[in-house]
């Protein structure tokens, strides 16, 4: 295998051109996620076999309309194509354009071509040519664009083999720039630029000086030159505009001869659908119904696989205990690692279901209509229409949701979106809510049909969204961040979604969760297990102490075991931690035992339930909430003689879990996406204070 020759191919194109379909057709399941050097943004890579000895390493670059980036996603394209020394620098660029928007799509092609990178042009969706009344003269177009053209339909799987053989022949491609655009803008200026950076293609030098960011791969001398050229900002701006106008002129000239559309054959399905889907009343009604259906899916359908996973990991733990010899190592696996992995896997069904829906909506083109409908409303809260998708995603998990905010080009709107996403009720809060609601809200119906417990759950969802919106308003008026950038979205044509694309999208999002949150949840689970199963001297002598006590003499073996376990927990490191924070959490109505659960759930909220199960020494083999619930309901507060989980404590806990930022995985992602510790710390402190204060108030009101 190592003898194989590898051709590095970069797949580039506008959004909605079928780029992802083509990538999936080329690479199939041989995809992996890597990192771009320097920045920790996932890179989609796939391997495609070209011949017996040669394969292509295909990078699926984020969709962009131009090489001049306006969002984080788009910056990757520029960075990849400018830095010849980096690993991702391609031997060959494959630019994909869609037949219907070929004019606009070709702009990017002409820019790439001017970088003197060998370039193949793929014209996609040619199966629709006849229906749309489009005619192309490929030979003539190849000649005038000075490139190899492949006609393809990524969905119908045509043209893929032809593309592969074109990739094999990439060395024959002409790398001359498309036309002397620079001469036509200002010959003197560009001659000066050319002389300054003789080692680079002229268009590359031009890109270096027109961008705002620093390029690490340049030498000190080159950096200085770049800065000098950047001084004349007026001139750069003017020439950029001129460049774009010239490029369109060239494209128009090229297409005039080789591309024509017979408009009479076009159908107007788009117009009809648009009128309904973006209608000022029906538009919102339809969107609300779709949301309702999605949430229904997340809750009702995900329960079954989640119960299965829960049960499977519980029995795996107990099975391990029976096959491995007892000892620390077995305990580490059975009580630390396996429940830790289980705590990650349990969320996959909800995340997968949610992202299936979202990617269907994106694939059909409907999401752009939602952005269009919601933009004005969201802007009142300092966000963008594009924030809607991340906020919906947040109901599954904040981590992929925060990553989905990358396409918001206005930094302030994006930042506010990232900061408020953790308020939305993510799947990890559900088990906590479920058990607390079962404890404090009676299972009664009101008005005949509405279940009180269900209503409470709904109220908590609304509370999460309200908190998100209100904090967005607050942030919008207080944050002093520059947010100058442009909102332009394409309204793509409606399409039937491709199952293959949806599948890969869901796999990718789920992976992002597993590797983003999973690692941290697992690591903290192990640390917590250690803290709970080790402790100072009293912990070590627990067995002797408990057995020697008078009152325990007549107890059965199992009951004694449980007493020992509970005594051990009390005197473990985590027990001492719980006790040391007791004064701080007392105003909220909690004792040290709940304190342990609070500390434990810092890895991920749902650990709360498991931690309480251990604390109230519920048999860990039976995972049904009935037993945990009964134990918790029976627990008595020694100070008052009342139930430990009375109404006021329950409400206080619900509010605490609704508001507090108890997710290390999310904090890590926010740090990564904002490239600063400032924002995750703001979330941690701000949300923590809100949680603390509202829990104290609630506890005192209801007491």
């Amino acid at each position, binding site marked *: 295998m190592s003898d194989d020759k590898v051709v590095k191919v970069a797949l580039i194109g506008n959004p909605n051109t079928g780029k992802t379909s083509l990538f999936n057709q080329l690479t199939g399941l041989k995809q992996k996620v890597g990192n771009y050097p320097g920045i920790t943004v996932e890179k989609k890579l796939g391997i495609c076999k070209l011949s017996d000895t040669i394969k292509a390493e295909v990078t699926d670059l984020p969709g962009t*309309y*131009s090489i*001049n980036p*306006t969002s984080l996603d788009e910056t990757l394209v520029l960075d990849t194509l400018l830095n010849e020394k980096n690993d991702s620098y391609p031997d060959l660029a494959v630019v994909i354009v869609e037949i*219907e*928007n070929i*004019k*606009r799509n070709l*702009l990017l092609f002409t820019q790439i071509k001017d970088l003197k990178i060998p370039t193949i042009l793929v014209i996609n969706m040619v199966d629709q040519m006849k229906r749309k009344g489009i005619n192309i003269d490929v030979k003539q177009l190849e000649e005038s664009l000075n490139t190899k053209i492949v006609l393809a339909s990524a969905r119908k799987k045509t043209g893929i083999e032809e593309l592969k053989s074109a990739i094999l022949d990439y060395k024959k491609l002409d790398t001359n720039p498309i036309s002397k655009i620079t001469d036509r803008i200002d010959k003197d200026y560009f001659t000066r630029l050319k002389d300054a950076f003789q080692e680079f293609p002229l268009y590359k030098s031009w890109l270096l000086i027109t961008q705002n960011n620093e390029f690490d791969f340049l030498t000190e001398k080159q950096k200085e030159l770049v800065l000098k050229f950047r001084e004349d900002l007026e001139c750069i*701006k*003017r020439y*950029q*505009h001129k460049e*774009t*106008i010239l490029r*369109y002129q060239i494209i128009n000239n090229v297409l005039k001869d080789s591309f024509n559309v017979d408009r009479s054959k076009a159908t107007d399905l*788009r*117009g009809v659908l*648009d*009128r309904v889907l*973006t209608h*000022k009343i029906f*538009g*919102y009604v339809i969107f609300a119904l779709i949301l309702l259906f999605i949430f229904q899916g997340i809750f009702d359908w995900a329960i079954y696989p989640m119960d299965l996973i829960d049960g499977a990991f519980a029995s795996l733990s107990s099975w391990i205990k029976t096959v491995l010899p007892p000892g620390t190592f077995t305990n580490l696996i059975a009580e630390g690692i396996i429940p830790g992995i289980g705590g990650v896997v349990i969320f996959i069904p909800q995340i997968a279901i949610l992202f299936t829906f979202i990617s269907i909506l994106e694939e059909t083109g409907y999401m*752009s209509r939602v*952005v*269009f*409908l919601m*933009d*004005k*409303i969201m802007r009142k809260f300092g966000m963008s*229409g594009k924030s809607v998708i991340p906020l919906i995603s947040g109901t599954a998990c904040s981590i992929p949701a925060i990553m989905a905010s990358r396409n918001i080009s206005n930094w302030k709107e994006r930042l506010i979106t990232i900061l408020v996403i953790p308020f939305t009720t993510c799947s990890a809060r559900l088990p906590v809510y479920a058990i607390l609601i079962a404890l404090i809200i009676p299972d009664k119906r009101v008005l005949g049909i509405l279940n009180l417990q269900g209503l409470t759950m709904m109220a908590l969802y609304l509370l999460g969204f309200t908190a998100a919106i209100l904090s967005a308003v607050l942030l919008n008026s207080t944050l002093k961040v520059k947010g100058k*950038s*442009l*909102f*332009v*979205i*394409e*309204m*793509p*044509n409606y399409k039937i979604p491709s199952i293959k694309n949806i599948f890969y999208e869901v796999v990718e999002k789920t992976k992002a969760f597993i590797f983003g949150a999973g690692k941290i949840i697992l690591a903290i689970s192990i640390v917590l297990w250690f803290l709970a199963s080790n402790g100072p001297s009293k912990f070590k002598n627990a067995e002797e102490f408990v057995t020697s006590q008078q009152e325990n003499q007549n107890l059965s073996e199992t009951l004694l075991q449980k007493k020992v376990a509970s005594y051990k927990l009390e005197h473990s490191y985590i027990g001492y931690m719980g006790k040391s924070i007791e004064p701080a959490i007392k105003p909220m109505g909690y004792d040290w035992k709940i304190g342990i659960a609070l500390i434990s759930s810092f890895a991920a909220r749902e650990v709360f339930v498991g931690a309480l199960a251990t604390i109230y020494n519920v048999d860990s083999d039976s995972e049904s909430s009935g037993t945990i619930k009964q134990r918790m309901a029976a627990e008595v507060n020694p100070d008052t003689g009342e139930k430990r989980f009375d109404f006021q404590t329950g409400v206080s806990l619900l509010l605490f879990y609704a508001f507090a930022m108890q997710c290390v995985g999310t904090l890590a992602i926010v740090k990564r996406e904002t490239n600063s510790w400032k924002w995750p710390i703001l979330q941690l402190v701000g949300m923590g204070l809100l949680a603390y204060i509202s829990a104290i108030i609630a506890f005192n009101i209801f007491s």
Partner: protein
Amino acid sequence: MFKTIANLQIGEKAFIEKLCLENIPLKLLEMGCLPGIEVQLIQRAPMHDPLYIKVNGSHLAIRKETAEKITIVK
């Protein structure tokens, strides 16, 4: 008062006038909003913002504040 894209009626067409370079972001030009090109207002979102336009064969949505910067002639 100059007429801008924001003044168009739904379904109405007009040509983009010479673009005032200081006010128009590059991205808009790159998406196909060029001087002399025909633009049609397809729809307004509820609350009259953003605007859904067809220009140069592309269907785009832009905010009203941007649309107000693009002057048109009939």
